[in-house]
């Protein structure tokens, strides 16, 4: 019998990777237009929901909170998570956050997780993340969060389960020529990959139910942080310049009329690739 768990899902709202994405401005930033919940975060939401469903479901008193740091539109990421089945949302919203690098992001999210624990009356047992955002792609935030929060960390988990008593997570991870079997006692942080599960599409009923789920909005000051500690100012890294490309010059296209393979081989030899 598992005791009620508190699971926090740090999520990111990003420009859709299937559309064209542009870096602009000085310092260069990713142009933000309509965005979506980062695709890789959906696997984390699904993992949280599956864990809860395997251990008594909603009636067992588990809390699954979606957390995001971002501009107003980032509420869309929370909305998607709530529609999938997360129970509540927290939005850290503050103009001072613009231009935050991974260091700042992890610092802010860590402060938010601590506030969730302090105000929620119970400690956070598990932080579940995707393995990278689909825009920054640094994969830095999960590790920095684990370090700041003192959480046992399992990154890139291929599979994930809770032990019988709900005191530890067991996971597997692909590590080159080996598959590792891992155990981490709660509280822990786990990042999952896009092979860990198949995220559900919200049902119509779930979409309707999501409208009533509570979302809190917190500022940087609410987290006890200074404006100078966040945003461009508080970041430890900076982007100096962004250029498209390098553009690939158009190559040749040849229709195979019986010699296509020969052309291929000769091209490779001419390019000194063999």
């Amino acid at each position, binding site marked *: 019998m598992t005791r009620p768990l508190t699971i926090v899902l740090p999520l990111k709202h990003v420009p859709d990777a299937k559309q064209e994405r542009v870096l602009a401005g000085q310092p260069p930033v990713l142009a933000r237009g309509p965005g979506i919940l980062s695709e890789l975060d959906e696997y984390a939401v699904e993992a949280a929901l599956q864990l809860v469903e395997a251990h008594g479901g909603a009636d067992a008193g588990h809390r699954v909170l979606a957390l995001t740091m971002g501009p107003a539109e980032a509420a869309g990421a929370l909305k998607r998570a709530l529609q999938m089945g997360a129970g509540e949302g927290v939005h850290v919203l503050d103009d001072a956050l613009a231009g935050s690098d991974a260091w700042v992001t992890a610092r802010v999210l860590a402060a938010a997780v601590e506030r969730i624990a302090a105000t929620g009356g119970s400690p956070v047992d598990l932080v579940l993340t995707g*393995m990278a955002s689909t825009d920054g792609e640094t994969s830095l935030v999960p590790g920095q969060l684990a370090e700041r929060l003192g959480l046992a960390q399992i990154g890139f988990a291929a599979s994930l389960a809770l032990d019988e008593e709900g005191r530890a997570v067991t996971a597997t991870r692909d590590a080159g020529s*080996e598959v590792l079997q891992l155990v981490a006692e709660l509280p822990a942080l786990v990042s999952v990959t896009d092979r860990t599960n198949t995220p559900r599409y919200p049902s119509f009923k779930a979409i309707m139910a999501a409208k009533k789920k509570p979302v809190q909005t917190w500022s940087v000051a609410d987290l006890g942080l200074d404006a100078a500690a966040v945003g461009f100012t508080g970041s430890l890294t900076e982007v100096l310049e962004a250029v498209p490309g390098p553009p690939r010059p158009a190559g040749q*296209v040849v229709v195979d009329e019986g010699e296509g393979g020969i052309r291929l081989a000769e091209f490779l030899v001419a390019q000194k690739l063999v």
Partner: protein
Amino acid sequence: MTTTPETPVALVVLDGTQPLRGSDRELLVLAGGLGETHVVVPAAPGGALLRELAAHAVAAVHAPEGGADERLTVPAVALAEAAARAVRPRVVLLGSTPEAKEVAARLGVRLEAGVITDVVALDADLVATKSVLAGGWRTRCRARTSTLVATVRPNSVDVPARRDPGAELPEVRALPVEDTAPAARVVGRAQRPPSGRPSLEEARVVVAGGRGTGGDFGPLEELADALGGAIGASRAAVDAGWVGPEAQVGQTGRTVSPQLYVSCGISGAVQQRAGMQTAKVIVAVNKDEQAPVFEIADLGIVGDLRKVLPQAVERLRQLRS
């Protein structure tokens, strides 16, 4: 850490794989141009490794005093931190494996150092070049802190073929490392059978297949064998069960940057390009002349891969003999 010593130091964090991989050598060559090279390894180095490192002018190797630690990530972080505090490097270099990125992330917090990932070039002023947004853009960025932690992509640095054998073996320094930070434990390991091919991330040649293979990767494997390459696959091919998930290219977090990418039966839609866009040369084979992959290929062959690839393999045999 706010000050760095007079002689600039570049610290390379290795994960203990032996013999050294191509990507490890790239880190050592890169480090050599940035400062006195120090290396940190997870276990006391044997003679063979010391000789390999001597050939790269490594000044000192830092290893933990104690025995092996079955905890995940934290021991490697604590070790790298201890080495960094001892030598105060201007830059700490790591590879781009998931494990290395986790170490880099946590090290950045412990050292209060800016971390830049997926670096493809690093100049003398520690300005890093990154390829971002699935290869569509390049950025130049830097850390504002006195130490930069950087993870470097494979196939970014030229490793000279001949290196000095080196007069002296590097000094070995034992580091006392004690770290009780909460960590996951490894409770079991299952070996995967080796494929006999280079790993995708390291491979200089990748031959990748998609829906157009119809499930038969035989012609691709022959070509990969002829070229000494790795086998890659699109998401569709992996989902169909034709190849294992370790072959998937274009999955965020698994980047490939080969010299040559041969794309077979892959349409080349935007989300598939992440895997191929940073390859130096792209060759595409596809039955559909409208396939978007032809827009980014250096050579495109419109045809049946079941005919084109075996013919190419045969021609390569002739040309080499």
